């Protein structure tokens, strides 16, 4: 035990209410790190997927086919309407029944999509639905005339989208996107409902095992998410400032 661990061990002995068990018990430390890692993975992967869904979805919404646009609208309405908690449960419990299983050892039946997989799918689609709307509004903010100028220079629809519309749309959408992604990181906690071992889940299980660690666990949880959201907000603001177009201040 090093000095750091010793300090918290002694603290727990003297003040049983402040048992920072995850600072001196390597097993609990590992649980916290695992939980933090899972939350980070969930956040980062869902942020990436949801942004991809948003960009592609907004592109699809501009399609000529009415059926495609209607399908997209249906997707957005469903995911924006229903609470993410119910979505998670719906994906995992209701759709999970139909996923094929495989058998690694001939005895066990393991579904090919785990609960983590369902959480990623469900949360990405949830935040993605908002992103589609955000990007669509951003694209609508790019004047026709600017796109026409690109067309007159010989660009095709895809080139105009990639080189002109998206870079401009992205800039106006950043504040809204920022809000939505913060919301997404906060919503990853709800993956608890389908037993995804993320930070909240791990902290609650530590507390369940060692009731004296209650205060320490709550403190850690509270500040962990504030820091996590803070980092995201800070990064997005930096990015926003970096993307600002000189001469066009808002």
């Amino acid at each position: 035990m090093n000095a750091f661990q010793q300090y918290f061990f002694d603290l727990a002995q003297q003040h049983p209410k402040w048992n920072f068990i995850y600072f001196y018990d390597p097993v609990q430390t590992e649980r916290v790190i695992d939980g933090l890692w899972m939350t980070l993975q969930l956040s980062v992967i869902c942020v990436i997927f949801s942004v991809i869904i948003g960009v592609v979805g907004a592109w699809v919404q501009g399609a000529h086919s009415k059926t495609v646009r209607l399908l997209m609208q249906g997707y957005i309405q469903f995911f924006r309407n229903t609470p993410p908690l119910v979505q998670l449960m719906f994906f995992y419990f209701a759709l999970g029944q139909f996923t094929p299983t495989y058998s690694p050892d001939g005895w066990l039946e393991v579904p090919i999509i785990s609960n983590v997989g369902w959480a990623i799918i469900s949360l990405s689609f949830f935040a993605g639905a908002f992103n589609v709307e955000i990007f669509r509004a951003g694209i609508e903010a790019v004047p026709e005339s600017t796109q026409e100028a690109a067309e007159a220079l010989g660009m095709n629809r895809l080139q105009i989208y990639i080189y002109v519309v998206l870079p401009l749309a992205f800039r106006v959408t950043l504040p809204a996107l920022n809000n939505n992604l913060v919301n997404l990181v906060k919503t990853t906690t709800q993956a608890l409902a389908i037993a995804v071992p993320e930070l909240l889940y791990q902290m609650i299980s530590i507390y369940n095992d060692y009731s004296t660690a209650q205060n320490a666990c709550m403190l850690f949880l509270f500040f962990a998410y504030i820091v996590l959201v803070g980092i995201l907000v800070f990064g997005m603001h930096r990015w926003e400032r970096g993307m600002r177009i000189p001469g066009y201040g808002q």
Partner: protein
Amino acid sequence: MSDNDWTPDQPLVSIRDVHKSFGNLEVLKGVTLDVMKGEVICIIGPSGSGKSTLIRCVNALNTIDSGSIKVEGQEVHDPNLDKLDLRKKVGMVFQQYNLFPHKTALENIMMAPLKVLKQPQAEVEERAHKLIKRVNLGGKENAYPGELSGGQQQRVAIARSLAMNPDVMLFDEVTAALDPETVNEVLLAIKDLAQDGMTCILVTHEMGFAREVADHIYFTDRGVIVEHGPPATFFTEAKDPRTKEFLSQIL
């Protein structure tokens, strides 16, 4: 360029009996005109007479309902039109400049040659530097459109079109949105271009300028060409009452 029998002694742009409607509103009612290589023509006329629509049809930003528009023998009114091929030949400058606000002046000029024509970076960059000096904006290479005045932005827009090495340039009321004091610098850039032998089609309200640079002037009203002629005679010997009325209002 394309497999047609066009030769340089034929009109570079040939517009034949073009009709165009927006809904119930017929804006072009049978317009016919020719532009020879190296010629500068000005289209004038009251608002709503269809002149902008006409030049937007030349590079297929608008489609036409009937008639024919040929650029170097390539039919524009064709569902299988190779738009890229057309737009390599036809450059266009807009009233609202329409620069890409997130790119510097130089990047605006280089974008299309790099991304559309896939030309090598070094060659495009060299040409862009020459073009920006040609429109008298040396030193503004790295300025963003938002940091430039309207006149400067419009000159970047001209350079951006020229970077594609077009054979004909279309100017759609390019000075209409400008401050009066910056109009001249843009007109000078266009004049310089015209004197270099670039084929130009201008829609403009600047009569003095039209008189000075145009080889031929067309007056349109309510979707038809009412009268046309070389500037020397057009302004002094207009015959049609509509032309006379328009000229008396604007001069």
